[in-house]
């Protein structure tokens, strides 16, 4: 399983879920000890701040506060920041359709990267069963089961993509300049991945069903608050307060 050990030099996938899964499961910092509920509330506070503000400065300050939180929690802050900046690329694409100067672009980018950093803080410090367990309390069973299966199948797919990329190169599947041939091979590869993913997912579901899985997570519920929740809750309140007082 891709998420069971430190990810090495696997196929670079932008969303980098294997790495995120490893950080979430292996960390021991104060954010890891905080409850999933407090971190979801923290995320909502940051998203609310981002929705409310029309000024890039408090959001920039908020981003720094989030960064300090990540760095002080023994999380790989440089990589987390790099992942949060990924959303800025798409924000800039949307920015093309807006008429505005540097302030508008700054606001747009900060509105993208600040909640993205908050989301990343949640997912790199919370093992996925806790997140899905929390979601199961508010989502219908089919949706939470679908989310869970998608997440697990994603790791299976990432493993298969590694093998696929190697085997297609070994067999001369990529030839520089031959767009048609490369496109046809990649399409067939995606199709093969899909068929194999369905087979593996079906097997995984059958194994889980044998072990008692019936569509809902074993650990559901909010889990309540803990002593370490002061950090995410405090950070979220600080970011929202910055936006409210700095108009």
């Amino acid at each position, binding site marked *: 399983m891709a998420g069971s050990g430190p990810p090495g030099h696997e196929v670079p*996938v*932008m*969303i980098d*879920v294997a790495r995120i899964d490893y950080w979430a499961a292996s960390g021991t910092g104060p954010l890891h000890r905080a409850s999933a509920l407090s971190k979801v509330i923290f995320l909502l506070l940051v*998203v609310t701040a*981002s929705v*409310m*503000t*029309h000024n890039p400065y408090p959001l920039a300050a908020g981003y720094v506060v989030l960064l300090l939180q990540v760095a002080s929690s023994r999380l790989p802050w440089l990589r987390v920041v790099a*992942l949060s900046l*990924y*959303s800025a690329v*798409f*924000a800039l*694409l*949307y920015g*093309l*359709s*807006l*008429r*505005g100067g540097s*302030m*508008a672009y700054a*606001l747009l980018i900060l*509105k*993208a*990267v600040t*909640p993205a950093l908050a*989301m*990343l803080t*949640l*997912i790199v410090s919370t093992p996925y069963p806790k997140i899905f367990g929390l979601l199961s309390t508010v989502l*219908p069973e*089919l*949706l939470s089961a*679908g*989310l869970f*299966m*998608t*997440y697990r*199948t*994603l790791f299976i*797919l990432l493993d298969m*993509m590694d093998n696929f990329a190697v085997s297609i190169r070994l067999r001369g599947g990529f030839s520089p300049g031959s767009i048609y041939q490369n*496109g*046809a091979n990649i*399409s*067939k590869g*995606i*199709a*093969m*991945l899909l*068929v194999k*993913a*369905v087979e593996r*997912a*079906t097997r*995984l*579901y059958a194994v889980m069903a044998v072990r008692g899985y019936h*569509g809902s997570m074993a650990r559901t519920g909010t889990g309540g608050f803990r002593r370490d929740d002061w950090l995410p809750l405090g950070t979220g309140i600080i970011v929202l307060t910055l936006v409210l007082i700095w108009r």
Partner: protein
Amino acid sequence: MTHMHIPDGILPVWLWLSGLFLMALALSVCLFSLRSMDAKKKIPLLGAVSAVMLVSMSLEILPIAYHINLSVVAGILLGPALGFISAFITNLILALMGHGGITVVGLNTLLLGSETVLGHTLFSLMGQRLPVFWRAAVVTVLTLFTTTLLLIGIVSVSHIDVDAVLHGHEKGVHAEAAPDPAISTFAIVVLSLGSIGWLIEAAVTGAVVKFVAQVKPDLLKHRLHGRQRSPGP
């Protein structure tokens, strides 16, 4: 192109709230229609198709800033109701990874979900007039063209004044004022670059559906409104 990478707090509140409300409504209808579904068969399929969509969406075709969605493949393989749910799951996980805002999940699900529903419907309506590759490819182009127009419509009504964004004045939307050259530029860019993307997506979708029809045809034979559909030649 039919997936908005718009951050939180850019779109007017009424628009993203309407998106979330309509998404919840559509999801309720889908869940109701799937209440007697064979979960053992369909949930793994839902997970696999959604995961493949996620992976394909993370692979950017750099010169034209396009990523394939495989939403039509999802519609054809999963059917309209499960396809819409797959669109929701994909968008929620993407939003959790910072790929588009949380508040935009509703609108994005409606856009991507409409691709799965339209893709499935058109693929079914075309019967077996064309070989399966061409049927899937033509359906993909038609679907993406339609949903790209929807995307332009959403961006057009959401096109808030930059002054309003920066200073908080609710000046309304540009759609009510004079024609916005930025929207025309956006529409031209999206339609011109998008059309290249549609052709790439059509080729990939056609190849994927053809491969599935050859290797695992039972995946295309799900029940739709009580009748069995065959993949065709």
